[in-house]
């Protein structure tokens, strides 16, 4: 699996994907019309563009092989066809899987990333299938008890924050889905490696380096709780740690106890325990924590032995340029004008940015933030030393934009939006920029002539071959790069630029590093040498290729790993030395070391001692009838794919206008299509108690979504969270609304949406927007429209958005009693990240005015007051940020036909917990937020004008339950005062379930 791929990844990214798909980047109807669907007896493949049809046979073939392998290994045949959504939304290939509500795999077709050889793999469809189906088999396989619950709920239940009981239902139907990410990624990566013929992280040089470095530097290896609470949140490896630790621990188990015993832990057979940690104890006879500790001791010894091997020969001394650890780094360039290196960095606590580091002093200067930085390589960077223009890319994980920064003026300009081009290289001879474009699964070498407003195809590589880490000789005559093949083999190649431009892209192999990839090779300024790195000895060392003599020589014997060399002088070069917290720019001598010894790999040891893994190869001989697939392909049909996912009992609360409270019971039905663009949720419940009047005992609520459209209806709407209060959404009467939402801009973290909604209400007792505010009429028709902009960013390891801005303007017209009451509101916010990591300040402002009708009519006014949190909640934890909130006052205590509001907020850096809890429930962080607000209502009416101020703080404690649910316990206090009201205080206590 790739560095970011996983079910957990999918949890985070699929919503983004579906938002992109659902809300539509441009026209949803056109988008929907593009979707294609093809079915085989075991697979339902949906893909987002007919252009991807050429990959269908490969997907079907590799899926079938992986399916047959896993069926045999786990002795299980999944129920029904597996769903797969294939798309081209990401810059690098990736995939994810989930067993809910049906078995589903999402796969991005772009070529894989190759950073640091952190996830070696052969042909990507096969690799992805091998990995993702492991997720499906380890999470979906049921026991008889699981099957009974699936029958009871008419399917597997997806946890839904609106109905928290679904946590329990989901656990009963798919218990192994409720496991930490490392558990799921560990086995998937382990199996994938052997299914790929040994190419994978289980024999990964990057993985060996990570643990070798931890041992060398005597840094604590995360325990099983610390990994999840801290290792996957603040470490610069973030999500990658799940793969690193998971794969390592699973490999250790296989080596120590054998594959049968290890696999038994992942196989949900009869008699196995639902919870993964409980099942560990059943199988291995000791607790997971105990065995994890034993693994750490074993790992330390393994790495000490490898360090001894490296130290067989003198190791290379590296002089750090700065005492600052940079986290992840891009390729670096030398800026002779300032005698500094230019590099993009990304580390926890601060947004990714381009920086310069002076060679002589190590002075670090932040130059420019990079929105949408990617994991290990941050951005693609190229430099024109003559004009001192720096080229870089944003939205690096998605469709990359190409921009330029003029270092002389600091001015940036967009060159090509959605260029999808990375691996930039600059040709000094003709000022052209070169790069590799990823589109529709192909890698295309492109050239961008000055002024870089368009790209021209130079050569499109056949599917399965990729070119990356480009550089161009100083005289512009040759282009070098790393070229990977279907087999996963990678070679250092050279091509003449003149030949390329005349259509001859035949590569010349400069050096074959055999099983180990060449990385980031670059020319020296005189063009006589090429410098790069390779794990040739198992450790990433720097190598020098003599162009004239065609000879490759080592330049280092590193203990951890050296990467991305930048030749400076004939005597020395800058390298990036791996350290536990990221990469350190360092100087090493341009000299050949005495000798370099190879290290040992855990994966090799497994292959030797547990030979059965050598036979873990997907079956061959799948014959794909391409014509039959073509004939079976049809347009995706929402109707055909619309079905009931699950049905389960619910409990809700309802409060009538007199404050009488009822508890109701009922059922909820969830329908959806297979790409999640269309859904229907229907909830019906009944309050049997006598507290409520008879016509308020039946509660109905339904929401239908279809791409950009949402239609909802309700009768005496009730809600689970109204059982707790104090905020209540239950309302007497009936309502029907239709809404259309569309994006005008959708570019990485920046978006601009508009929303139009029309709604009708009948039998009203309270204003739909504001609880406890009596309606002036029992019928209401509303039209609403808004325009909303958002550009929010956060640094690595952030717990909340840390900087950026938002603004929105909205119009609402309430028509009741033959009167129309229009209102106009506007709000905005701006956040700044402070020098203190993960600490930021936010400024917010809002204003609104009625535009007609009586200013005292409740349908014309806006109401304020309260924190906004419920005792038990599912919405955002910081409700005080909402315009209608005003902690210190009672809910909706004050109102105005016009208003102006301002707020300032300071977010403290979070306090992290490394080990507080057990694997199934542990604390992750705690943070404090302080705020102060000012509110003026009816500012246009001297007599009625009122002003209020408040100040308060909120403390939040994040805990993880059942391995994956992010719950938060919040406590807040605020005091408010105003000229016309006595000072008042409020305490808020809330528990957000998920």
């Amino acid at each position, binding site marked *: 699996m790739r560095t970011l791929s996983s079910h957990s990844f999918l949890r985070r990214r699929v919503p983004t994907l579906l938002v992109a798909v659902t809300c539509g980047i441009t026209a949803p109807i056109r988008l929907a019309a593009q979707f294609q669907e093809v079915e085989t007896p075991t697979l339902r493949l949906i893909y987002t563009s007919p252009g991807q049809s050429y990959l269908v046979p490969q997907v079907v073939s590799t899926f079938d092989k992986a399916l047959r392998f896993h069926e045999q290994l786990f002795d299980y045949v999944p129920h029904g066809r597996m769903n797969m959504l294939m798309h081209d939304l990401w810059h690098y290939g990736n995939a994810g899987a989930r067993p809910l509500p049906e078995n589903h795999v999402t796969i991005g077709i772009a070529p894989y990333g190759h950073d640091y050889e952190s996830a070696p793999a052969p042909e990507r469809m096969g690799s992805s299938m091998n990995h993702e189906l492991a997720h499906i088999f380890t999470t979906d396989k049921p026991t008889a008890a699981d099957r009974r619950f699936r029958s009871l709920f008419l399917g597997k239940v997806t946890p839904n924050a609106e109905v928290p009981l679904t946590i329990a239902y989901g656990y009963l139907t798919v218990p192994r889905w409720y496991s930490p990410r490392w558990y799921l990624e560990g086995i998937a990566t382990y199996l994938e490696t052997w299914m790929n013929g040994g190419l994978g992280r289980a024999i990964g040089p990057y993985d060996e380096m990570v643990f070798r470095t931890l041992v060398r530097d005597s840094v604590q290896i995360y325990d099983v709780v610390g990994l999840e609470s801290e290792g996957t949140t603040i470490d610069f490896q973030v999500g990658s740690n799940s793969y690193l630790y998971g794969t390592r621990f699973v490999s250790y188990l296989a080596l120590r106890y054998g594959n049968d015993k290890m696999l038994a832990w992942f196989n949900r057979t009869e008699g196995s325990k639902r919870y993964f940690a409980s099942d560990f104890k059943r199988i291995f006879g000791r607790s997971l924590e105990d065995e994890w500790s034993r693994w750490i001791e074993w790992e330390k010894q393994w790495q000490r032995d490898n360090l001894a091997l490296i130290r067989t020969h003198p190791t290379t001394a590296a002089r750090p340029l700065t005492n600052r650890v940079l986290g992840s780094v891009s390729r670096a360039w030398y800026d002779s004008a300032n005698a500094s290196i230019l590099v993009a960095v990304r580390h926890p606590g601060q947004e990714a940015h381009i920086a310069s580091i002076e060679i002589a002093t190590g002075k670090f200067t932040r130059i420019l933030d990079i929105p949408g930085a990617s994991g290990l390589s941050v951005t693609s960077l190229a430099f024109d030393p003559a004009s001192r223009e720096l080229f870089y890319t944003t939205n690096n994980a998605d469709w990359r934009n190409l921009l330029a920064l003029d270092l002389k003026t600091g001015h940036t300009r967009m060159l090509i939006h959605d260029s999808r081009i990375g691996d930039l290289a600059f040709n000094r001879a003709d000022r052209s920029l070169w790069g590799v474009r990823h589109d529709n699964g192909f890698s295309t070498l492109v050239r961008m002539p000055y002024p870089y407003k368009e790209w021209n195809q130079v050569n499109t590589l056949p*599917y399965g071959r990729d070119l990356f880490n480009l550089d161009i000789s100083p005289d512009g005559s040759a282009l070098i790069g790393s070229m990977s093949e279907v087999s996963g083999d990678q070679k250092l190649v050279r091509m003449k630029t003149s030949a390329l431009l005349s259509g001859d892209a035949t590569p010349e192999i400069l050096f074959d590093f055999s099983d180990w990839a060449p990385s980031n090779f670059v020319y020296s300024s005189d063009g006589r040498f090429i410098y790069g790195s390779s794990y040739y000895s198992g450790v990433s060392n720097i190598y020098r290729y003599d162009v004239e003599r065609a000879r490759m020589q080592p330049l280092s014997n590193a203990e951890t790993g050296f990467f991305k060399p930048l030749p400076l002088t004939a005597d020395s070069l800058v390298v990036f030395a791996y350290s536990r917290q990221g990469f350190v720019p360092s100087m090493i001598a341009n000299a050949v070391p005495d000798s370099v010894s190879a290290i040992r790999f855990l994966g090799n040891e497994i292959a030797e001692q547990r030979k059965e893994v*050598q036979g873990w190869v997907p079956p061959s001989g799948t014959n794909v009838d391409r014509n039959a697939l073509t004939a079976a392909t049809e347009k995706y049909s929402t109707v055909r794919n619309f079905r009931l996912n699950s049905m389960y009992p619910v409990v809700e609360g309802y409060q009538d206008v007199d404050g009488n409270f009822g508890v109701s019971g009922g059922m909820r039905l969830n329908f959806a299509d297979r790409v999640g663009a269309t859904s229907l949720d229907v909830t019906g419940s009944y309050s049997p108690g006598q507290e409520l009047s008879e016509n308020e005992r039946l509660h109905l609520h339904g929401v239908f979504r279809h791409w950009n459209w949402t239609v909802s209806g309700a009768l005496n709407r009730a809600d689970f969270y109204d059982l707790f209060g104090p905020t209540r959404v239950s309302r007497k009467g009936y309502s029907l609304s239709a809404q259309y939402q569309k994006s005008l801009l959708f570019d990485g973290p920046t978006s601009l949406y508009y929303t139009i909604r029309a709604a009708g209400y009948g039998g009203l007792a309270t204003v739909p927007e504001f609880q406890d505010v009596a309606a002036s009429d029992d019928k209401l028709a509303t039209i609403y429209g808004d325009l909303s902009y958002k550009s929010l960013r956060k640094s690595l390891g952030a717990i909340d958005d840390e900087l950026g801005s938002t603004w929105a303007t909205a119009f609402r017209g309430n028509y009741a009693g033959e009167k129309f009451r229009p209102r106009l509101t506007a709000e905005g916010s701006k956040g700044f990240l402070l020098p203190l990591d993960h600490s930021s300040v936010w400024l917010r402002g809002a204003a609104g005015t009625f535009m007609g009708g009586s200013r005292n009519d409740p349908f014309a006014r806006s109401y304020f007051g309260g924190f906004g949190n419920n005792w038990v909640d599912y919405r955002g934890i910081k409700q005080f940020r909402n315009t209608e909130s005003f902690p210190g006052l009672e809910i909706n205590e004050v109102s105005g036909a016009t208003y102006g509001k301002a707020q300032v907020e300071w977010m403290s850096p979070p306090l992290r917990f490394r080990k507080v809890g057990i694997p199934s429930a542990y604390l992750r962080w705690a943070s404090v937020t302080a705020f102060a607000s000012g509110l003026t209502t009816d500012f246009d009416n001297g007599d009625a004008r009122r002003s209020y101020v408040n100040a308060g703080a909120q403390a939040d404690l994040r805990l993880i339950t059942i391995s994956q649910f992010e719950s938060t316990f919040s406590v807040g206090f605020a005091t408010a005062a105003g000229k016309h009201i006595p000072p008042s205080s409020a305490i808020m206590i809330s528990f957000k379930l998920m």
Partner: protein
Amino acid sequence: MLTQYQLELIHREIDGENTPEASAEVRELIASQPEALTLMSSLQSLDALLREVPNREPSAEARRAIYETMSMHVNASPSAAHAEGITSTVRRWAMEQWNGVSTFMGELMLTKKVLLVATTAVAVIAIIGNALVGYPPSVFDAGTIGNGDGMSGVQQAGRYKGAKKTDADVTLSSPEIQALLQNDQIIKLIKSEAFREVMRNEANRVALSDDANRMVLANDANRMLLTSEAYREVTANEAYLRIMQNEANRALFASAAFRELTANPAYREVLASEANRKVEAADASRKLEASAAYRKLEMSPAYREVMASAAFRNVMASDANRALFASEAFRTVMANPAYRSLMASEANRNVMLSPAFRELTASSAFRVLLSSEAYRNVMANAASRELMAGQAFRELTRNEALRETFLKEANRMF
């Protein structure tokens, strides 16, 4: 070549660690693969010799050097120069010993005594290696310093290798069409309004789905013509483009007489004739005019009607036409056997006769498309021409869904 598994099987057999089933597998392997037999024999000899070698300590000099090296590295290299000096000494010593042994072995390999010396040396090296490493390396970790394919001074790390994926493991459906769509010029073309209009044009759809057209596309001559350099030059020629846009030319193409003419067997015969190919030469011209086919053609009403038509005269009189006729590329195409064969084919005639083709060529969108720079760039693109000449393109034209690929590409969102 023996696989890693087979090598391991043989080694285990020598070591007596195989199960009866595994031993049977070894026997079968030896029987079927001479390479396995050779390896087995040599290992057995070596094994026998090694068993006779007593456990020996390395020489005091070697031990001292190695221990010094080890202790130095444990202490994190306080003096790089010192460290380098010692390591160099060890390396030189080792190299000298090795060179001596290898030279000696090269000369006297077959003598039993030398074999004994050599295997003893191997055993000593193994013992020293074990002392250094602390455990035997995995068979997949094995590496050598300065091996033939590698780099001097670097021990290559081993890696377990199972079955490798090859191109045979990749099954795609006409990827060349999608690869073609990576061309910036083609993207510009298909995003152009003119192209979209042509693709939406019913006549175009009918023409593309026409049996005759498919036969033309499947025709070898057509394929050869499309991939020829001369054809590329003609279609990229300014004069040609002007002609294609020319109103008179369109009228000529659309005329019934022209269609009849091109359908005339005599006309095709003339086009296919050797004399026509060499029509530049006076001799050939005379031969052509004297040929029965030409005379027959001249007598045909369609020919006469075309010759007399204003459209034809306008075409012939246009500068563009003269420029085109004068161009070397045009003459090359005319002389191209593939072109002549194509023009003479029944399928081509049917295409020219089809109302859809006529309607298409008469449409303004078609003319705009042909005159666009993007179109010219595409026609000049080698990959594009190869595609049009290939099987995939023919499949494209046969398949309703695929036929819409280009149009869909123009509207593609992801």
